């Protein structure tokens, strides 16, 4: 295989992964995730307070195609740390709960970080429920 590429999208993805220590490929943006799995992954990352870069794969279907070809991983989101694929939503969530995520990201989790990965809606689920904290639960 030659080093010169005729695939600028794949090359741009590889470069983004090289250039960012922590980078998440997702549907939508961290502020406005477009899928429950992406939302949940962002929530877990944010709970560790580690900085991360994010790429929205939705604007061009070729981004997802090339990303999956590069990573050998069929679904979105995909989290890369130091150039390596860490996993998708399930793995990131599990790693959050076991403490491995903060370790891999090289951060101390904040003292008030929840033990369980923060919930985001499952895809297709009704809009996020807002807890009514006014109810006396005791």
């Amino acid at each position, binding site marked *: 295989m030659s080093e010169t590429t005729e695939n600028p999208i794949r090359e741009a993805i590889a470069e983004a992964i090289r250039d960012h220590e922590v980078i998440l490929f997702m549907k939508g943006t961290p502020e406005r995730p477009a899928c429950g*799995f992406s939302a949940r992954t962002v929530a877990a990352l944010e709970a560790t307070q580690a900085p991360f870069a994010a790429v929205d794969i939705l604007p061009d279907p070729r981004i*997802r195609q090339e990303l*999956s070809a590069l990573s*050998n*991983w*069929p*679904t979105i989101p995909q989290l890369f740390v130091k150039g390596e*694929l*860490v*996993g*998708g*939503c*399930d*793995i990131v969530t*599990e790693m959050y709960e076991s403490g491995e995520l903060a370790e891999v990201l090289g951060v101390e989790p904040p003292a008030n970080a929840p033990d369980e990965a923060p919930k985001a809606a*499952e*895809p*297709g*689920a009704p809009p996020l429920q807002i807890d009514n904290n006014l109810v006396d639960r005791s």
Partner: protein
Amino acid sequence: MPTTDELKLRIETAIPGASAQVIDLTGGGDHFRASVVAPEFADMSRIEQHRRVYAVFGPDIGGPIHALSLETRAE
């Protein structure tokens, strides 16, 4: 439209000794969650375990199966 039984069967047929539990997350027949236990996972990283299960479905992931959430274990 894929069913939970079909997904279970495909996983258990493709991965020797595997036992799978599959649920339909939304009732819509396209977002699933599978818990898979297989002896061969013992020698694999979590990434490799998930890749192994995704490989069972090939291009169906992202096609008829929009999402397949996974939990994998060796025993």
